[in-house]
């Protein structure tokens, strides 16, 4: 049962967290949430990303965007490295792949080349 009491507890927890972590996160994870993305299954992907971020501490924030213009490759997840300003585009992402992206790319800086758009276009 979720009650408004939980919200107060979560607020205190979140305040402690804010003090601990650095303000600028290294990565920005962007999910395409236009009609094409949602139709292709972006909802469970975004849901999984938020759940993972709620349970674990990752050096990234998750945001949404509209149509990226590559509708046939949706669901698309783009990972922006804020330090060296590079972008990695993951295509046909599933919730399982999304977790793998967080655990490898975000945590260990290991890009999963087999899921990126470059490997699909070859």
């Amino acid at each position: 049962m979720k009650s408004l009491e939980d919200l107060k507890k979560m607020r205190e927890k979140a305040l402690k967290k804010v003090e601990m972590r650095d303000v600028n996160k290294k990565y920005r994870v962007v999910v395409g949430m236009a009609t094409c993305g949602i139709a292709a299954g972006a909802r469970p992907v975004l849901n999984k990303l938020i759940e993972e971020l709620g349970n674990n501490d990752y050096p990234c924030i998750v945001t949404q965007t509209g149509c990226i213009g590559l509708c046939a490759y949706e669901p698309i997840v783009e990972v922006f490295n804020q330090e060296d300003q590079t972008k990695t585009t993951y295509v046909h992402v599933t919730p399982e792949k999304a977790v793998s992206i967080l655990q490898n790319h975000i945590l260990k800086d290991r890009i999963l080349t087999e899921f990126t758009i470059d490997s699909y276009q070859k």
Partner: protein
Amino acid sequence: MQDIAMYIIEILMNSIYANSNNIICHIEIKTSINQLLIIIEDDGKGMNDELLANVTNPFTTTRKTRKIGLGVAFLQHLCDQCNGDLTIKSKENIGTITVVKLPYDHWDIPPLGNIGQMMMFCIQANADIDFILQYIKDEHTFFFDTKLIKQELGEVNIDEPDILLWIKEYINQGIKGENL
């Protein structure tokens, strides 16, 4: 599209992209008159008469990345296939109101879907916007306002992952009538 929540999220996303400050989503099921009523109201930039007249056309869009805009077109199709009615009113710089009326027991109406998740995505898309969700099913009423949540949270952001997940669960419980 598989569920009603998917259709609504399309319309809510339009409202979010229209630079709204407040968005109200009203879902009302009245079994006595067999009606599912959905109203989405925003105070965004609105549409001019020309855009409004063509808004259900799938080749109408304001975005630059592609020439197709399917959100409202799909909703119109849903209303057509279910003998429902779609009305959109809009005034530039004042806002837009979208009203959907559907016969609740129609064969071709998809299930309602995950309304909590739908609201979570909208709040995550733009945490500065205040969302109100009103859900009514006959005698049962559930009301959710992000303003009240933000008041409770103080300086903590509403788009923190655990708070978003709490919102999703809280709304889904409220819709089922389990909240105290």
